[in-house]
């Protein structure tokens, strides 16, 4: 890639939008994943009784079971949300920048 084309892309208004949107979104989702996981670990460390209580009156299943499964599902769901937005919005922006340069 030549210096001119790098300059042309970095000056493109959509490029700044793409970079800042993707960066913000990526770190936001990373932060959410860390909150879910470390929140769960801290609950295991400090709120054992809460996780160990029955899910409903007379149940053997505890609150901790759906909470644990929710952390697993949230990991999958967050990657799905990222793919959805990246394959749509981010790829459209990239395509627009490429087309403008040609």
């Amino acid at each position, binding site marked *: *890639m030549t210096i001119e084309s790098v300059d042309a892309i970095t000056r493109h208004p959509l490029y700044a939008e793409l970079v800042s949107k993707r960066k913000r979104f990526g770190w936001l989702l990373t932060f959410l994943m860390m909150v879910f*996981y470390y929140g769960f*670990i801290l609950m295991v460390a400090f709120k054992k009784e809460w*996780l160990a209580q029955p899910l409903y009156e007379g149940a053997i299943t505890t609150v901790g079971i759906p909470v*644990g499964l929710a952390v697993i599902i949230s*990991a*999958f769901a967050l*990657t799905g949300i*990222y793919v959805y937005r990246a*394959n749509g919005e981010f790829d459209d922006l990239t395509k627009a920048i490429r087309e403008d340069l040609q």
Partner: protein
Amino acid sequence: MKRFAFSPWLILAALLVPFAIVSADALTGGVTKQPLNITAVIMFVIFVGATLGITYWASLRTRTASDFYTAGGGITGFQNGLAIAGDYMSAASFLGISGLVFASGYDGLIYSIGWLVGWPVIMFLIAEQLRNLGKFTFADVASYRFSQVPIRSMAAVSSLVVVAFYLIAQMVGAGKLIQLLFGLEYWMAVVIVGVLMMVYVIFGGMTATTWVQIIKAGLLLSGATFMALAALYHFGFSPEEMFKQATEHSAKGLAIMGPGTLIKDPINAISLGLALMFGTAGLPHILMRFFTVPNAKEARKSVFFATGFIGYFYILTFIIGFSAITLLAQHPEFFKDGALVDGIVKTPGGLLGGTNMVAIKLAEAVGGNLFLGFISAVAFATILAVVSGLTLAGASAISHDLYASAIARGRVNETTELKVGRYATFALGLVAIGLGIAFEQQNVAFMVGLAFAIAASANFPVLAASIFWKGMTTRGAFIGGFVGLITAVTMTIMTKAVWGETLGHTVADATGKMVPVGLIGLDNPAIVSIPVAFICIWLFSITDRSERAKIDRAAFAAQRVRCETGIGAEGAAGH
């Protein structure tokens, strides 16, 4: 190339000879070793035959360095997602986590979740950036705008250290497991695993490795799904009923339904969590898989599918472990004397072969001898897929980063690099067999944790800073990476698991009994070593006034453009 193409069949023939010898030996075999499991051996031989057939096909297509390292970049996102899952779900996690759930219930679920949460982080921060900037190895990305020789050497050394520890743990696990499942001698199992993995990688490169991983993932996921469904059938497909009966058949009763003793203090739990979360994003054999897809879109899809498959797999191991409490309690013949009293599991460790055998015994309980053979063969296949991926990553660190870039300074043709890659695979295979045999009697449990800690403390900080931080310089990356590596290794040696349990340092406890002791209270160094690496990268970069530093910083804009848009990356996987 013709010379290579036919030899897999000779090696297959050579491999079948030990089976014949063992079947004769099994009649007089010792009591600890299982009798030869014929069904398992037949199914495993079918698997080996199929994978060698694929390797032969792949060998015809492995002509360039790009074919060897990345299967020519032609793998789809879905295929790569399955292959990543096959690369990551080890026999240790299948057997170990279901065993932990069987013994401790809910704690097993807490433990398994830690192994999943690194995947979203890879997706959000690493995957498409890696695809857009790199060609064959993660060092391509880490060294993109820096002085090649120091950064590639650093990345190659830390990759090789990660691969070595991971590989030793896998080889020793393989030897013990196969001894138990197939009734083979330990050394023989290690040699079979080592030779097969060399054949896959040397002849079939990434194409064969990918398909071995895909087939293994398919077999493991379908086998575990069948087992979980067959087990749930016994409880009328009601999880509540499964939990209820499990509490009735476990000596721990209701305690297995909540957090137990796994997390003693939050600092250790968070440190392990950090190692798993950021270590996954620094494992060379995992990162390498992102170069096998054609573009950033497929790289994203890969992580999405991989996260789904791996998460689903951990849910299955949870069901398998929990249902096993009730279902294995119906089989007194599976337990040592006194471990099972009146249908209640008193000591889970009293299961014959240990708690690692839970999934295997459950396979026998729900599916008879045929299914037992199938699951045993799957466990063997699982090990092969993981060690093949590791060896290929190690070999490419040697041939692409050390040889082609650092030693030959880029003045090397593809044919020579490919040849070096194959020799490196052969050498790594021999080393893996040697270390596997040498470490038979050693405690290797800490080694996978150490591999993750090094990946999180050396590879990940350098990779992340090279992608996101304009200010990093060659000096900062080199010093930061090595300090992270050395800190992680040194602190691991000081832990109780290594200093006390492996090196034999003890101290008298309150009752005067000698117990293993560590020099530090941490079990995993990540909470210290990751920040130390980042601080060193920052400090030695901002104080860097060299000419090289100016080049490093000035090159960031162009790197960022390619990283964000993929412009200029299309040719990366080309020939």
